[in-house]
């Protein structure tokens, strides 16, 4: 694990805002405080329009643990700014008491102890209860339900049903509109089929046919809510064709297309919209930059980077919402409109504490039904863990260490590469490791675990390339995701350096020798974006390893030295 102290120093220095908020740790007393459904729903209503917003569910139908990152560095202008705050800095900034329910939901330190107090979060039947309660309070005609994308991918059931389980669930929630990213990895044909037949709108102003530049999806939809016209403009992940296999949607191109968003805003206003919303899978930093350049957006509902923030970020007259991931939160925005303009906005990030919220029986039944054909597989116990297994963090996660260890031993590789995905559940010590847990961290449509030869130079180029994708100072050149995880090799990274000079000190861990530029190494990895990648699916590799070791224990990982934060 990376030294937390290094990052604390870096972020504390960068963020004057964290000083002197005066909140001391409340410890266990606060942790024991029981949260109720009424507490979670409590909201002083405003105006006539309510937007409910979920994003990045990653196909999680059931409550789970998901540990937020302890390392989430910002670069350039956003260094030390939210959402690039973790643990104590995050709590100080948002005035959250240590040990509280919000601290458990939003920060990473003390996760294991707090998990035992507060239990799992999310679950579609709990989300259905919250949505139902808000609709009952406000009236259906005032509420708009939006999904920021990455809802169809991330579980065994979504993979096996090609997202039909999530489409059924989101339809039952009476979703109004969504955008996409991982959705596209089911292939162009499947995505179009769902978009054309689902009861909700699939919006994406920035997906074009790459021959004639014709729009592939509806760009915008106008809704009448609470006597106001709400325009929702969809923005798919601009980097989908770079981040994921382009061969799965060969005729589509993406991009940010800022000027086209401006056109959509202007057209929406001309058509009578009082509220203009960008439903965006850009990622938070991209949206923050965009908010300063596109005029007339009232709200940007952000996604992709999985940030959860219990407050709004304001850029000019635009507010940005970060609603978290994995079904942990539902955001509520009440909007007041005067003279066809937004006059006030009130916001709450509602944490979905599974033990505090009464499940919606109809949704419980639907979730059971979609899971039933796979129930035996999902529950199959492969092993158990003695260690906390989590994914999020810029440089490594213990679940990724497990995947790397599996590839090292099962594929007999010297060095292994595992993608820096931000999705996948967390397991706490003594948890069983089931097929469901393994596939929650690996369920993709291009899972083959390859084995090949690479030179030291090539490995360095990969690291430099991925690092630039995360730490380029201009967010428009970033692609999201975390740093590629490496097994069998250590390295140093200076995130403040330009592309090509961030990575140094590459060391082969087993021999302790420096990685040689021209020497060839046996490398294994998964999630190749190239067509026809050969090798067994990664879930089989991980399951075989877990079955052999029986009880997983992950040693602290000190292989990556980080500077420049």
């Amino acid at each position: 694990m990376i030294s937390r102290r290094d990052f604390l120093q870096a972020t504390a220095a960068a963020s004057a805002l964290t000083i002197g908020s005066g909140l001391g740790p409340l410890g266990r007393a606060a942790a024991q405080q029981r949260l109720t459904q009424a507490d979670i729903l409590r909201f002083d209503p405003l105006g006539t329009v309510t937007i409910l917003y979920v994003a990045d569910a990653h196909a999680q139908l059931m409550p789970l643990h998901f540990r937020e990152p302890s390392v989430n560095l910002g670069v350039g202008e956003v260094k030390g700014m939210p959402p690039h705050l973790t643990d104590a800095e995050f709590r100080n900034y948002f005035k959250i008491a240590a040990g509280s329910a919000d601290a458990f939901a939003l920060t990473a330190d003390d996760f294991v102890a707090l998990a035992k107090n507060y239990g799992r979060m999310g679950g579609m039947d709990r989300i259905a209860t919250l949505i139902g309660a808000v609709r009952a309070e406000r009236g259906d005609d005032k509420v708009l339900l939006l999904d920021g994308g990455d809802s169809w991918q991330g579980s065994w059931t979504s993979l096996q049903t090609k997202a039909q389980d999530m489409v059924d669930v989101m339809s039952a929630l009476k979703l109004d509109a969504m955008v996409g990213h991982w959705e596209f990895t089911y292939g162009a044909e499947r995505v179009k089929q769902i978009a054309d037949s689902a009861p909700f709108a699939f919006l994406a102003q920035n997906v074009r046919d790459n021959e004639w530049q014709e729009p592939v999806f509806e760009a915008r939809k106008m809704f009448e809510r609470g006597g106001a016209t709400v325009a929702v403009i969809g923005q798919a992940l601009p980097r989908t064709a770079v981040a994921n296999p382009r061969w799965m949607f060969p005729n589509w191109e993406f991009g940010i297309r800022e000027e086209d968003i401006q056109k959509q805003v202007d057209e929406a206003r001309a058509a009578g919209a009082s509220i203009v919303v960008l439903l965006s899978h850009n990622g938070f930093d991209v949206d923050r930059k965009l908010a300063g350049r596109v005029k007339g957006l009232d709200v940007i509902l952000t996604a992709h980077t999985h940030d959860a923030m219990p407050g709004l970020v304001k850029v000019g007259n635009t507010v940005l919402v970060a609603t978290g991931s994995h079904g942990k939160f539902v955001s509520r925005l009440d909007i007041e409109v005067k003279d066809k303009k937004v006059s006030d906005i009130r916001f709450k990030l509602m944490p979905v504490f599974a033990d505090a919220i009464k499940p919606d029986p109809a949704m419980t039944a639907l979730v059971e039904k979609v899971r039933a054909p796979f129930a035996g597989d999902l529950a199959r116990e492969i092993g158990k863990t003695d260690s906390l297994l989590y994914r999020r963090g810029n440089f490594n996660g213990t679940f990724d260490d497990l995947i790397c260890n599996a590839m090292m031993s099962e594929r007999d590789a010297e060095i292994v590469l595992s993608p820096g995905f931000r999705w996948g559940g967390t397991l706490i010590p003594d948890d069983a490791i089931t097929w469901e847990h393994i596939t929650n961290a690996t369920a993709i449509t291009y899972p083959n675990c390859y084995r090949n030869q690479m030179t030291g130079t090539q490995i360095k180029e990969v690291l430099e390339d991925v690092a630039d994708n995360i730490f380029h100072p201009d967010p428009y050149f970033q692609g999201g995701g975390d740093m590629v995880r490496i097994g069998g090799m250590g390295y140093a990274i200076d995130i403040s350096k330009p592309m090509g000079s961030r990575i140094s000190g590459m060391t082969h861990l087993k021999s302790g020798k420096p990685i040689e530029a021209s020497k060839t190494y046996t490398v294994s990895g998964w999630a190749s974006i190239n067509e026809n990648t050969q090798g067994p699916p990664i879930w089989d590799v991980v399951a075989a390893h877990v079955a052999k070791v029986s009880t997983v224990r992950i040693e602290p990982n000190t292989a990556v030295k980080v500077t420049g934060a």
Partner: protein
Amino acid sequence: MVLKSVEKTRRETLAMAAIAGLAAILAPRLSLADEQAVAAEIKKLYGDKKFESGKIKLDVPEIAENGLVVPVNVDIESPMTDADYVKSVHVFAEGNPLPAVVSYRFTPACGKASASTRMRLAETQNIVCIAEMSNGKLHMAKANVKVTIGGCGG
């Protein structure tokens, strides 16, 4: 695709080597153009004349989705009358073996000075566009296009 079989782009080479389960075959290192080579090309055309900014809208992606076919759109602000029009537009790529990508000639009859094409970029580099006006004035714009191996997205 014919281009693909000739030589692989850096993105392809890396992606193949790094991510795919194929044996790594590195394309021979090409001698790439650079800033100086582009400057030399421009000097051949216009000597030591000074360039102004503005007038040129150079529309290229921040990140190429496919390095083999990167769209480049140029749009030059001009009334395009007999008295005032755009004579020619040249596009250069600093990182390509031959820096000159395309040259366009315009006449007032064109109505507008706007053109689109697709170019092949082997690696991250600057694209330079220059426009020569009928009054002899020269304009220049520059934009960076990132070519990445991709993968690993969120």
